[in-house]
């Protein structure tokens, strides 16, 4: 099951990242996860994008392990449970992980506490990432549902 979840995590992360990029290109959102993650390590946009893709991919694999833990605990692994976990995952990402935790540790991102002493390079995402465009919350939820369904299906076998 773990290997299946990891394989699903790899595919799901690619789908999620590509979907986000597509949404950006279509003008639906300014959310750029590789940039947000990569600029933790480098202020250079091009370097940050490369690092960010790698970090996001690793994160995707790690999350799939967390999914596998839930599958093992419940004794059930299928696309439907994966879908449910994907929804929880999206709420966690938009409500806490990217909204609160990332700005708190990101050296180049503003926070509600940033004052004139700071010159951040990135605006904070806001609750459910809404600062990056109204459709961001929808895009985030839909793509995490897809991620969860893929991980669930892969872990449980098609």
């Amino acid at each position, binding site marked *: 099951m773990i290997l299946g979840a990891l394989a699903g995590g790899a595919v799901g992360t690619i789908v999620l990242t590509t979907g986000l990029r597509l949404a*950006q290109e279509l*003008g639906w*959102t*300014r959310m750029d996860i590789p940039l947000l993650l990569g600029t933790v390590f480098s202020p*250079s*946009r*091009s370097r940050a*994008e490369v690092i960010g893709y790698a970090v996001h991919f690793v994160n995707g694999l790690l999350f799939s392990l967390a999914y596998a833990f839930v599958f093992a605990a419940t004794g059930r692994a299928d696309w439907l449970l994966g879908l449910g976990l994907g929804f929880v995952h999206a709420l966690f990402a938009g409500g806490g992980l990217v909204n609160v935790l990332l700005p708190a540790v990101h050296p180049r991102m*503003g*926070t*509600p*506490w*940033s*004052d*004139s*002493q*700071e*010159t*951040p*390079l*990135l*605006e*904070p995402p*806001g609750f459910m990432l*809404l*600062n*990056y*465009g*109204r459709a961001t919350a929808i895009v985030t939820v839909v793509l995490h549902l897809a991620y969860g369904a893929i991980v669930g299906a892969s872990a449980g076998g098609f």
Partner: protein
Amino acid sequence: MRVDGFAAIEDYAVVGDGRTAALVARDGSVDWLCLPNFDSPSVFGRVLDAERGGSFQLAPTTSFESQREYVGETNVLATTFRTADGVVRVTDALTLADRSWLAPLRELVRQVECLSGRVELAWSIEPRFDYGRRAGRISSRAGHLVAEGGRTALAVGAWGGTEARATGTGIAGSFDLSGGESGLLSMTVADRDPLVFGTRAAAAERLQSTLEFWRGWSARTAYDGPWRELVARSALALKLLVFAPSAAIAAAPTTSLPEWLGGTRNWDYRYAWVRDAAFSLVALLRLGHTDEARSFFWWLEHATALTLPRLRVLYRLNGAVETAERELEHLSGYRGSRPVRVGNGASSQLQLDVYGSMIDALWLYADESGDLSAHEGKAIAKLADWVAEHWRCEDFGIWEVRSGPAHFTHSKAMCWVALERASKLAERGLVPDHRERWNGEAASIRRFVDERLWNGERNTYVRAASSDDVDASLLLLSLFEYDDPRGERLRGTVAAIERELRDGLRVRRYLSDDGIGEPEGGFVACSFWLVAALAKAGRVDEAGALMEELAGAANDVGLYAEELAPDGSFLGNFPQALSHLACVAAAQALSEAGP
């Protein structure tokens, strides 16, 4: 001196922390403060409604004279009150957080020091949350009085005077100080989170570190030309308007201060205009504040990403695009100037000049930093391509007229600037090379301007196609070097503007109908642009004389509003970024022109 409870706009000074700003009147009353951010609803809004707006008053209980100044080159204000019995100084600041300690989300500190004699002062906080709609609930928590209104709460710490007491609608107290004694008030703020109660020592320490931060920041302002003091104050005012969490710059921290007393030109300026951001990037680059310039660059890039290549005129400070305009009918407005508006309906207008301002700023940034990624280069090329395709459209122009679109000369010239700068970047290999198209369209713009927007008989560019009027925005043709600033055409245009729009130091924007049909004051930015245009035209003495006059027209703490009334009083939102940006540009033009 108040009229119907309202202080004159020039009687205000501003303190801020990069998230919000407070207007402090000469009589010690904080009459404007939105919490937690610039664009949040006001908690003190007396400047928009003397009865129900709310305020934080602190003043001697007997008659006094007051004198104010910022503490050196900082954004910390010191007001000295002289009474028959003594002299007392009040130091006001929105403090910056001490990162090593649990700091409040926002904090307004008011330190009182008796310099001589004996002075009794009274203070009262009358919060009116949500633009004056609610008085709030006063209660006591852990020995601190707290006022709550919806998601916002504030706690008051008072030391060195009587204990704070609840008054039913607010919190009040007093000081009775003799020479050498001091007191301190700290108003801490929470927004959807727990309040952090201050201690006297921590608040005093934050005030000190805030002073030190501003001094250090000003010391990095690399400008040693003429009017250094004015330029340094303008830089500080601009820094104060930068919304630190996102690096967006607010056009002003206020809404609906009128462009004419009793009029309806009352707009909400608590938004980030792309044009202002571009001007800010240029100004801060030239003043040596490269960190801020880089932040603006990233903000410009990110804020506009959703709509690229189409630019909105303005964005919310947090990057969102929703700016729907509505009226607050329960507020009286500044001295009866209604309506009071929040939100800004100009956001969806087509204003072609924004593209020129933005690409010019990006070009300067790339020129100074040599730093432009392939992604950014592509974005600039998209913008230039959009300009090449759309410059023939009518637009609403830099003044956001509500009389309908037109072919404005300034807009067309800025389209030319956009294409010319993009070509320069392509020449250096920094953006994809579409020069053939851009140069061709740039030449077409010049032909259009020559044929339809130049009036040979009057020897001036005109405001718009089919108009014989001039417009002060034409001064920017000189600043952006659309033409040779010393050439016959721009000299003729500057002369026409002086003749028709200038009245002493005041320069009107235009005389034509703009769809509102009400009078307005002289536009401060236009006066500074005239200084710059005169300096660039080689009329340095005249430019210097006008600059001297304008320096004298700032208020006692060196700040400008949007406009100047015929009697020298201030009109419009305050302090205004564009006025201070133009001030910096004028000083720099004079500095470059030499003695």
